[in-house]
């Protein structure tokens, strides 16, 4: 795009005119002096840049100054005696002749003699505008006329360009105004963009104009508006992937694409169409706002693009980008309001406003749901009060009182007592505001934190339990990991032994075979006892921290730990604990492990009991030898004939048992210098008892 003439400002033009007038004045002054200073006159005429021509009363040229050569292309000498009409275009000549004749006859001027603009003819046939001023002189009774002819073609051009520029400026400002109006309308986005595209057609000579916006995922441009030759929004241009075709490339590059030569532009794909429709130019601008692409606007035109059109387009692109973004933001706001309502529902968060002076209270729907009132019933302080937990009423009143006088932000927690006697935990945050009349108003959010509260409580509880349990279960874990190790050699021993027995039964006695099998049996037996030895060593080596303990305390702790199991299995616990027992010197965790193991065994045995009470009895006392004795007895099935095997490693009567607990428990008690044994309970179940030596000097 280029510009033929530099724009001329009105100020420049005015300056040029002032100069011209000053020159004319000087010239008139010189004419007055003519008679007195022939030489001065000659100098003026010879050096003037304007053509000066004198004619006689016949219209023949008497004299032409040297400037005639530059202005008209004639040699001054060659014009002498020629009619003045030679310097005029054909259509002017008649007019001149009749006017000239009339003037000579009547003295009536048909044109203004000072600064008249006429068309002149150069020697090469070119017509050009001149400004003519002429004067009349009578010499020797004959009239002669001298004219000053100034080539004003440059000025004319400048004026024309200026006028065009002025026109364009009007157009562009109309365009800008229209874009501004379109964007401020409360229409939907499509309507706004349609008006913008229409303005491009109306004011920017667009054959048609289109505007796309970027899709939500940022991958496509969606056609929102089309004005001019084409107005449909469907078809191949309705969705354009970013990065494809000229429109998608503009989006991707975020740079305008401009051409005044559609036929040779590589990005114009349908050249035949462009030729047929006489599309000369194309302009496409990305709609970008703060580095974010919003869309693309583009137009085809049958006229070349001018600088000001481009200025206007780039202005429009910026404005439209802002407009689109604002629309989006508004929509997002509307959506987020909807989200807020949804969020309140999901988060069980209610909100309310309270005008203190009038006690006007407005609740959000979710708050109605939380308080379990029918949505829409008028909310009064009394209504709210009716739900507050009696124990929190005084706190509630205090908060209300504080709020009435205070005007400061408040945060508090309270409980609701629902009609079904369930309790809800609430967390409220209220912000004090003043309305335009200075009236105090609270805006508050209230969250139902019941679930969180309950799960926190449960979490706290299980956390402390877990800390205990992890110490205790390491016993079971160890048992599990060694069970496999012990089981393998035992299995091999059994297999080999059985195989030998079979061979013996069949009298199939090959000494080599038997010797090898027996050798393996011995090796696997040794291996198994080595594993057991490792367990014992592990138990002895464990970090033992003996301290003086009250056995009753440990019993209570273990009952707490087993509390859930006891409750779930509906087992009643009977405590027969002797007060003021002597302390024992023991590792608290190991003692807990043993007791928990015994209690868990009993629970498991009791869980199968039906038809009689499930009873667990915990006893503590001093035995005959002065040791502290603890007994755990249950009303379970007991162990019948297998009584003597219960302390064997891996003996178990339980489906899920490892069979390690009792043997390890016995090892632990023995390592404390005590004993652990089992006996049948009467009439049902089993009693497990252990003793621990009393610490000398402790109360008894």
């Amino acid at each position: 795009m280029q510009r033929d003439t530099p724009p001329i400002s009105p100020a420049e033009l005015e300056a040029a005119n002032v100069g011209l007038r000053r020159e004319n004045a000087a010239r008139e002054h010189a004419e007055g002096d003519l008679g007195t200073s022939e030489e001065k006159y000659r100098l003026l005429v010879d050096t003037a840049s304007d053509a000066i021509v004198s004619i006689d009363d016949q219209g023949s040229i008497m004299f032409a100054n040297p400037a005639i050569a530059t202005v008209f292309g004639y040699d001054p000498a060659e014009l002498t005696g020629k009619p003045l009409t030679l310097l005029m275009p054909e259509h002017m000549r008649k007019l001149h002749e009749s006017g000239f004749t009339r003037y000579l006859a009547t003295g009536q001027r048909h044109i203004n003699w000072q600064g008249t603009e006429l068309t002149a003819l150069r020697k090469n046939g070119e017509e050009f505008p001149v400004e003519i001023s002429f004067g009349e002189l009578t010499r020797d009774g004959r009239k002669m006329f001298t004219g000053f002819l100034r080539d004003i073609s440059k000025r004319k051009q400048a004026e024309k360009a200026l006028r065009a520029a002025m026109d364009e400026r009007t157009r562009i400002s109309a365009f800008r105004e229209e874009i501004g109006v379109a964007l401020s309308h409360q229409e939907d986005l499509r309507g706004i963009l349609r008006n913008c595209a229409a303005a491009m057609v109306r004011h920017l000579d667009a054959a048609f104009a289109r505007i796309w916006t970027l899709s939500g995922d940022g991958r496509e441009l969606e056609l929102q508006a089309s004005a001019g030759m084409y107005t449909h929004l469907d078809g191949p241009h309705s969705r354009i992937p970013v990065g494809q075709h000229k429109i998608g490339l503009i989006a991707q590059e975020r740079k305008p694409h401009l051409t005044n030569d559609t036929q040779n532009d590589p990005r114009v794909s349908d050249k035949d169409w462009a030729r047929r429709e006489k599309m000369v130019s194309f302009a496409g601008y990305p709609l970008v706002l703060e580095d974010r692409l919003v869309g693309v606007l583009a137009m085809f035109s049958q006229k070349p693009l001018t600088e000001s059109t481009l200025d206007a387009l780039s202005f429009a692109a910026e404005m439209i980008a802002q407009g689109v973004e604002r629309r989006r933001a508004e929509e997002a706001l509307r959506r987020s309001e909807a989200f807020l309502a949804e969020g309140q529902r999901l988060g069980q968060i209610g909100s309310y406003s309270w005008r203190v002076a009038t006690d006007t209270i407005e609740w959000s729907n979710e708050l109605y749901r939380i308080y379990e009132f029918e949505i829409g019933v008028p909310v009064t302080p009394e209504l709210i009060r009716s739900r507050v937990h009696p124990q929190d009423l005084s706190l509630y009143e205090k908060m209300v009182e504080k709020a009435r006088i205070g005007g400061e932000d408040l945060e508090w927690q309270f409980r609701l007592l629902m009609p079904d006697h369930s309790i809800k935990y609430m967390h409220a945050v209220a912000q004090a505001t003043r309305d335009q009349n200075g009236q105090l108003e609270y805006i508050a959010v209230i969250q139902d934190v019941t679930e969180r509260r309950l799960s926190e409580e449960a979490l706290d509880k299980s956390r402390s339990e877990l800390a205990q349990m992890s110490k205790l279960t390491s016993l079971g874990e160890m048992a599990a990991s060694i069970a496999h190790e012990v089981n393998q050699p035992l299995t091999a021993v059994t297999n080999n032994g059985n195989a030998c027995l079979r061979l013996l039964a069949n009298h199939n006695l090959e000494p080599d075979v038997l010797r090898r099998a027996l050798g393996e049996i011995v090796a696997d037996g040794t291996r198994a006892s080595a594993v057991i030895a490792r367990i014992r060593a592990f138990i002895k080596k464990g970090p033992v921290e003996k301290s003086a303990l009250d056995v009753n305390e440990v019993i209570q702790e273990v009952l707490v730990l087993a509390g859930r199991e006891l409750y779930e299995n509906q087992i009643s616990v009977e405590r027969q604990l002797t007060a003021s027992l002597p302390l024992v010197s023991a590792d608290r965790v190991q003692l807990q492990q043993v007791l928990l193991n015994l209690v868990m065994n009993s629970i498991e045995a009791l869980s199968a009991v039906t038809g009689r009470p499930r009873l667990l009895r915990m006893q503590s006392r001093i035995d005959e030898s002065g040791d502290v004795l603890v007994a755990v007895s249950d009303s379970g099935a007991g162990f019948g004939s297998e009584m003597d095997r219960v302390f064997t490693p891996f003996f178990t009567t339980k489906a899920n048992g490892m069979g390690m607990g009792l043997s390890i428990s016995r090892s632990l008690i023995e390592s404390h210098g005590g004993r652990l044994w089992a006996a049948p309970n009467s009439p049902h179940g089993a009693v497990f008892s252990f003793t621990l030596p009393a610490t000398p000097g402790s109360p008894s």
Partner: protein
Amino acid sequence: MTAAPIVTGAPTVFVVDDDPSVRSSLKFLLSTVGLHAEGFDSADAFLHKKLPDAPSCLVLDVRLPGLSGLDFQRELAARNIRIPIIFLTGHGDIPMSVRAMKAGAVEFLTKPFRDQDLLDAVRVALERDRTRREQERELMTLRQRYGALTSREKEVISMVAAGMLNKQIADRLGTAESTVKVQRSRAMEKMHAESLVDLLKMIEKLQDPSERTR
């Protein structure tokens, strides 16, 4: 029907256990009842073994390094290796054994187990495998014989199976009843069917092979 000749090698028990002494003791125990056993220390090692064309079963420790016993069972099923499995476990729990049995295990034994329990389970497993192999072989023979029928013969016997009389078949096919009779007896001959009931049983087996093999 005439049974196809049974070409099978000696039955084999595959023992998969990572403990060498358990493996060798199992092999020894099995040898006392005349069973051939092969040991593998992992599921992977077993999977690389080409299985013989003989009744076989798998004695498998649940707790194996790498692929666990239950995963291995699933893997075999996925590869369509339908070998009966006896699980051994050091500390089997009930849910685990239920899972294994549901997936088609023959037995689930807790170590150390009674020798008779294992030997019984192995016997059951080998018998099951033998039956399956026979059925598969039988079905294969049937398929071959059926494949040798002309399409008209196949048509005729399928109509016979559907309960149609010779005359009805002739009407349907637009031929003479005597032709149908010939085609029918030729088909029975080719299928080695001794009676109509025999033929119907064969067709039933051919139609639903999954019913016949386990």
